[in-house]
């Protein structure tokens, strides 16, 4: 699915690029006609016009076309045709006499950086340099018919110095393109990371408030009940009654606050329904994809097809998976070489349990810390990265699903989280009915 997503993004960018190209080529065509109408040199050769048309049309990445081609290779074909067209026009306009045309090369180089990556930029720089040099040199030494509007032949030294200057600038511009697109991508990732972390934190706080509210209300009920019992016992003095009433007043205010607070947050107990674990993993993966895609973490999914369903809440289960993926991402990112997160699902037939395994080759968890995993507010991360609630909530959610989380880890080698949740017995429909728990 990751590839699909990448492909989707790439296709979107291509469709943009296609539109921009179409407009550019259309303008170029109009320009060439205008030049001819003005009585200038006829730049219009049949082959060039044909190429422009083919290019303008082929670059409209129609869905039918995109489905058939290797989209990654396709960008290189596009670029090379662009560069040939540019070089051709440049040649017709007098080569070094019309340096303004070479600006168009820079547009290709910059675009390669923004749309694709370093490899595309390098490709654009090299092919631009080669075609540009070829046109200039071949024309200079007579292999191509010379086109000049000033009837002036440049000395070879001048030609080479201009040529080298232009080529050097292409390389410099390529560097600029790679660098600036890197910055753009970094900022984009940072923005997505911030928003995902914020959302995660908000969700965590919500769970925490919702989860504790029920307990607090239970304790308050005990307090209130006992106080009321005390106030109705015989032999209470007026003063004692007053004090007990004051306690009850405070208790009522406290309960009101809890109600107001909890209404703002999500309640943890939600609808339970037959849930597909594999689907929840895919969704969690998709949610974390903006972060994972630029990281040093490779994700491998070994999902058992047609795995039995579990009785649970998909949003909650997904929240657990997001937590585990983000933790692995942090652990792997802390390693210079990066690492792999393997997500595996399995079905333990004899125990009727569905197993989900998150194994990463990150920094692992220290032996002392292992015991404290899941403890509220326990974290080894920097304060801005986490409050130490992610796994606490994950443990709570899995417990509500009558499941269990086990952790195994070797420091510096990685960590493995194993989750086991009872599978639904498809033979007994009654299992579906006992949905409300916790």
């Amino acid at each position, binding site marked *: 699915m990751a590839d699909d997503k990448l492909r989707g993004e790439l296709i979107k960018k291509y469709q943009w690029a296609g539109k921009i190209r179409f407009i550019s080529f259309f303008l170029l065509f109009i320009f060439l006609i205008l030049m001819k109408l003005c009585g200038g040199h006829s730049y219009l050769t049949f082959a060039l016009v044909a190429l422009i048309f083919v290019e303008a049309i082929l670059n409209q990445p129609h869905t039918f076309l995109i489905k058939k081609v290797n989209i990654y290779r396709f960008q290189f074909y596009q670029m090379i045709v662009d560069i040939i067209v540019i070089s051709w026009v440049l040649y017709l306009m007098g080569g070094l006499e019309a340096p303004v045309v070479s600006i168009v090369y820079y547009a290709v180089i910059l675009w390669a950086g923004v749309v694709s990556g370093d490899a595309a930029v390098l490709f654009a720089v090299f092919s631009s340099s080669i075609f540009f040099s070829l046109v200039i040199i071949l024309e200079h030494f007579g292999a191509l018919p010379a086109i000049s509007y000033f009837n002036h032949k440049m000395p070879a030294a001048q030609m080479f110095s201009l040529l080298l200057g232009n080529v050097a600038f292409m390389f410099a511009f390529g560097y600029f393109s790679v660098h600036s697109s890197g910055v753009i991508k970094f900022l984009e990732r940072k923005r997505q990371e911030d928003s995902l972390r914020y959302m995660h934190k908000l969700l965590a706080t919500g769970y925490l408030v919702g989860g504790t*509210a029920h307990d607090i209300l239970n304790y308050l009920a005990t307090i209130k009940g006992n106080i009321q019992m005390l106030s109705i016992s015989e032999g209470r003095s007026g003063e004692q009654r007053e004090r007990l009433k004051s306690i009850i007043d405070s208790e009522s205010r406290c309960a009101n606050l809890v109600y107001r607070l909890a209404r703002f947050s999500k309640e943890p107990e939600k609808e339970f329904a037959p849930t597909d674990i594999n689907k929840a993993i895919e969704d969690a993966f998709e949610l974390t994809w903006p972060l994972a895609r630029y990281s040093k973490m490779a994700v491998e999914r070994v999902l058992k097809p047609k795995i039995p369903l579990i009785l649970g809440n998909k949003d909650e289960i997904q929240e657990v998976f997001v937590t585990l993926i983000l933790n692995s991402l942090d652990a792997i990112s802390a390693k210079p070489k990066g690492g792999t997160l393997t997500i595996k699902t399995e079905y333990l037939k004899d125990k009727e349990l569905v197993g989900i395994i998150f194994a990463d080759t990150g920094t692992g968890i220290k032996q002392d810390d292992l015991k404290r995993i899941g403890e509220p507010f326990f974290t080894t991360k920097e304060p801005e990265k986490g409050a130490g609630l992610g796994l606490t909530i994950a443990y709570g959610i899995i417990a509500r699903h009558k499941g269990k989380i086990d952790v195994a880890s070797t420091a510096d080698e990685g960590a493995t989280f194993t989750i086991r949740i009872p599978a639904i017995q498809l033979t007994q429909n009654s299992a579906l009915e006992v949905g409300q728990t916790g």
Partner: protein
Amino acid sequence: MYKILVVDDEPQIVRVVQGFLIKMGFEVAEATGGEEAIELLRSDIKIDLMIVDLKMPKISGIDVLSEMNKLNRKQPAIILTGSIDTSKYLKELKDFGYTIKDILHKPVDLFALLDLVKNKLQIV
């Protein structure tokens, strides 16, 4: 004398409600959890009214009410819950013939509980 079954997974609450109801002249059976409640319901014990919590581990209040329905026990019930949002339970409760008027929220005023108990048992 009327006998009331109090079901809550929090023993402290069971104790308070039980103590209060006894003081008010009722007989009380207690269950700290859904399983105990179902066991009592299955026995031939006489129960005139049940006060039941909704959110309990393993077997919830809804499960208890559903079991009561299956056992064809006709006594009324009062739902006493610490859940903030009971709207999601309402549909199921409706199926068993309960309305929002049968729900009391924790922390409950014991006298409000008493009023509802009397109302349900039709004691004037």
